[in-house]
């Protein structure tokens, strides 16, 4: 479904991602792990169009999307969350999520000024989508709260809801449980599982090994920008090089 070949990103002299070949398994939970600074976030940023790759190609549904801007890639059905949330704190949870469906609407300035039927319909559509997404992530009860007043874990869920509101086929989640306590981590894992059960393809960066081993169908390991292993959780756990990278490199919780 999504495939990258020879993907490379250099920041000046620093090679953040080095010639990675990878293909995402459709409808599965794909995990990417690796020590801090291994290039995981950069890898996501390349695929989702935040950064332009230095070399390599990205193919999504048989179409090359290598140098497409992020907003075009989003429209193709590729959604993402960021390692740190970028929500608008002084606005309500629902207001934050409504704009998530904007990319599926066509209303322009003219529609807004004259409040055309199209605008009214599309606004309803966006609101309905926001409610549906918030319901899916289990946040209906806080939808009228200001984001600044909800917990860190709830903010992560809002970010999920935003991604879901774009009507994606594949979702990239960058460390969704960073800064979330163990109990809540289990709940987040359940939510990710629920998304996969719905038929979404998931691509996940995570540090919490037990969670990954339990959730993921397929794991890729990055170290210093290079893919050093991939396979099922059982295979990865036994892999010599992975053990070495984690014990030798900076182990991060």
């Amino acid at each position: 479904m999504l495939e990258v070949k020879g993907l490379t990103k250099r920041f000046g002299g620093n090679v953040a991602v080095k010639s990675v070949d990878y293909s995402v398994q459709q409808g599965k939970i794909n995990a990417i792990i690796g020590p801090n600074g291994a290039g995981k976030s950069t890898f996501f940023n390349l695929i989702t169009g935040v950064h332009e790759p230095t070399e390599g190609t990205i193919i999504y549904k048989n179409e090359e999307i290598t140098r497409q801007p992020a907003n075009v890639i989003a429209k193709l059905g590729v959604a993402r969350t960021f390692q740190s949330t970028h929500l608008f704190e002084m606005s309500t949870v629902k207001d934050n999520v409504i704009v998530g469906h904007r990319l599926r609407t066509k209303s322009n300035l003219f529609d807004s000024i004259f409040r055309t039927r199209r605008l009214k319909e599309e606004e309803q559509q966006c609101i309905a989508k926001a409610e549906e997404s918030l319901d899916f992530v289990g946040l209906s009860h806080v939808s009228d709260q200001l984001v600044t007043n909800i917990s860190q874990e709830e903010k992560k869920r809002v970010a999920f809801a935003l991604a879901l509101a774009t009507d994606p086929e594949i979702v990239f989640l960058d460390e969704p449980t960073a800064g979330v306590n163990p109990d809540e981590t289990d709940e987040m894992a359940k939510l990710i599982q629920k998304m996969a059960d719905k038929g979404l393809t998931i691509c996940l960066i995570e540090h919490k090994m037990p969670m990954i081993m339990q959730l993921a169908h397929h794991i890729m390991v990055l170290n210093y920008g290079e893919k050093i292993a991939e396979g099922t959780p059982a295979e990865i756990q036994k892999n010599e090089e992975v053990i070495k990278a984690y014990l030798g490199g900076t182990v991060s919780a």
Partner: protein
Amino acid sequence: MNVLTNKKVIISLLIVLGIVFPFIIPNLYYLHIMTLAFIWTIAVYGLNLLAGYTGYLSLAHGGFFAIGAYVIGILTVKLEMGFWLSFLLAPLVTMFIGLIIGLFALRTKEHFFAIYTLCVGYIIYLVIDKWEGLTGGVRGLIGIPLPEAIGPITFQSPTAQYYLAFFIFLLVVAVIYRIVHSLTGRTFIAIRNSEDLALSLGISTKRNKLLAFVLSTFFAGLAGAMYAGFIRFIGPEIAYTTITFDLLTYMIVGGIGTFAGPIVGTFLIVIISQNLQFLQDYRMLIFGPLLTLLIIFSPRGIVGFIQMQLYQRKRKKQESLAYKNREEETNAGG
């Protein structure tokens, strides 16, 4: 519901106040000040759309205001075109110039954008000041005609001019309301909040930033044209950066990125400065510290402060209600 009806009552009252003002205070000087305040508010609304809602602080706004004023001035005085046609063309020409400048300015972000537009504003001033053949240079343009009568309505009297400005003001407020409270407005807010996030949500930040920029120059040009039509004399000082900073002050005091902010800030400061006129330039000794305090304690101005208070009151009410309900439940259970 309560708040909504309240809002409607407040708005209706303000409109009625606007209509009866010339009758309650039949003082030509106050009428003049009020008319100017309407004009400034329109310009501030343009600035707020860009700086407040989209997050791009333009310091060329006074320059675009002057372009609107000079376009109508040049068309009517030099080319002897009719008032209304010139009045229509002024914001459109301003918007077109805004489009071209925006294409370049929006390659920058944050403080670089502010600095870039500050330079643009100063260049606009220099062009107006030095291009004597077109703009009259330091002497400016004198004798901008009155608006031609529309049917039985004439615009000779200050009262008629007041009502004209008030009418356009209401129209602008309504249009801004719709823009801000629509998918377009939500798109702008998403960009202000985080461009990376907006992009990842499929929003073309480039196109929408340009739209906000061009719209802001439209309202600046409109306000400039109204100013020229009202004062009927314009000089290069209206392009000077002090105008930009006045508009900025009105916006920040009222509340950047709030809907009512431009009205509250502009009218408040215009009225206060009239009453402090005797202090002349020393007014700034009072305004400066007040502005600094306001920015520290309420970054979203007076309106933002009130909104926050209202929200917190509502939240406390809800919490105590939920608490009461829980208590009743446990009481009923026990």
